[in-house]
């Protein structure tokens, strides 16, 4: 086994353990922390793929910003330990099982297809593109995917304005 394979197994295992821990812990703070561990392991997997930019963005956006907000909210609401009973209704359980099965089928389908896909095999040998991932992502975003990119930014802007309007209105009603 070469070092990359060892690292892949390591990051993959940490990512899986973290993901299982998210749903096993009874306390929301511990769940949130496990999710951060998972994000880190995934960033490690991105680095192994040579996608340094994506790895950095993963840590900055998810581990650095979104999860801090999660923790902030959990701490502010002072959520206690969830009880074993009543955490999930029977309907939700059935729904979760169906969704889980669908996701599993999808995963197996992608894995089987990827093994036979020649593009995956060629990507493994192409290691020289490592230094230009940021450049490549920029070029793709601002040429080929310019419209989706701009639409996404508009949607985010709309969400931002919506939040401000909601907060302002709430304040006025209180006053």
């Amino acid at each position, binding site marked *: 086994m070469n070092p990359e394979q060892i690292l892949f197994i390591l990051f993959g295992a940490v990512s899986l353990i973290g993901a299982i821990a998210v749903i096993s812990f009874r306390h929301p*703070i511990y769940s949130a*922390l496990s999710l*951060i561990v998972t994000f880190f392991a995934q960033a490690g997997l991105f680095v192994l793929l040579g996608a*340094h*930019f994506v790895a*950095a*963005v993963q*840590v*900055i956006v998810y*581990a*650095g*910003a979104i999860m*801090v*907000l999660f*923790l*902030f909210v959990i*701490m*502010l609401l002072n959520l206690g330990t969830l009880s074993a009973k009543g955490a999930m209704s029977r309907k939700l359980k059935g729904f979760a099982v169906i969704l889980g099965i669908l996701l599993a089928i999808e995963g197996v389908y992608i894995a089987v297809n990827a093994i036979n896909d020649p593009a995956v095999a060629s990507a493994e040998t192409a290691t020289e593109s*490592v*230094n230009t991932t*940021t*450049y490549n992502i920029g070029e793709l975003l601002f040429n080929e995917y310019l419209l989706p990119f701009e639409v996404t930014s508009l949607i985010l802007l709309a969400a931002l304005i919506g939040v401000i309007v909601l*907060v302002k209105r709430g*304040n006025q009603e*209180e006053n």
Partner: protein
Amino acid sequence: MELLPDIIIPIIKILFIAHLLIIGVMAMIWAERRVSGWMQDRLGPNRVGPQGLLQPIADGLKFMFKEDLIPNHVDKPLYVLAPAMLLVPALITVAVVPFGSSIELFGETINLQIADINIGILYVLAITSLGVYGVVLGAWASNNKYSLLGGLRSSAQMISYELTLGLGIIGVLMLTDSATGSALSLRTIAIEQGAYLWQWNFLIHFPAFLAFTTAMFAETNRLPFDLAEAEQELVAGYHTEYSSMKFAMFFMAEYMNMIVGSAVVVTLFLGGWHFFGLENVGGPVWSGLISFGIFFVKTAIFLFVFIWVRWTLPRFRYDQLMNFGWKFLLPIVLTSIVVTGTLWITTGSRLVVGIGNVVAAFIVVSIVAGLLVMNKAPEPAIPDNDRQITPSALDAIE
């Protein structure tokens, strides 16, 4: 993989830098107390060793012999983990900072940098954004309302100022030519700035430089931004319940963050290891060592500014802190991005960009200040839910 260049030299570099950081922390603790003494016209510690230089060692020994108390009511795993979660990010950020040009030894060219990764600056931002976890978890695990308030303040403050931190760099990145390497690499940014003062980034991006530096101060949780541990209101904030070496780790992390932050500012804005061509004097070995010396001195001067600011400015009130971050710093860096981009495309002259940035920043600050004065409500402009989590003494008086 060859033994010398791939294994031994990186290990030597890592050991050297890690030890330099820890010795730097000790030196900073001494310097802080001596400089504050000097500023307040008193002596400061001068009994242990010459000029009190051994005082940090005495402090360290004292911390080690103190009882390592874990209160009964804390959340034990996180309580133990939190100091490490603050210290580790502070320690690993330095890996991408170039602390000198390069040395040629044994036929190898050794870059004076632990890892020159091509997204260096993003790595710095990513790791900096993790520093908040140590504070927040320490605060929450302490199971103490003062600690929790400190942690909440700190996380809100860090999220707000991180924006300025990230956006302040964009102007620099836009003007960094990616011909010599990835424009996001700290080494490329340092090389791209020439040998002379007027070629360094802080003159071209002066408003962004000020905003970035201010945000850096806020990220280290020091005065005037130490709302998280405001003694008069919160005992000691997030580290109220900590004692012995665990407290010392919080303390060390603060100073380590300062040192690494200064090194990053020197690299990004103050020309890195360049100083009027002095870095090219001497042979391949001496020029490398001199460049390291220049970088060291620049970082030390910037650290002095850190101490200077701490003992000069009083602490912000919480709403002032948020207003300053969101209404002044953020508009300044956003304008700086637009102005830098537009002027660079149209004129291509760094002089024009530099002047344009300063003028634009002046205009933005006057507009924001004007709007704030015009919209001044009879009541302080704090939403009620903010006031609940930050019961500052001043609000109670009002």
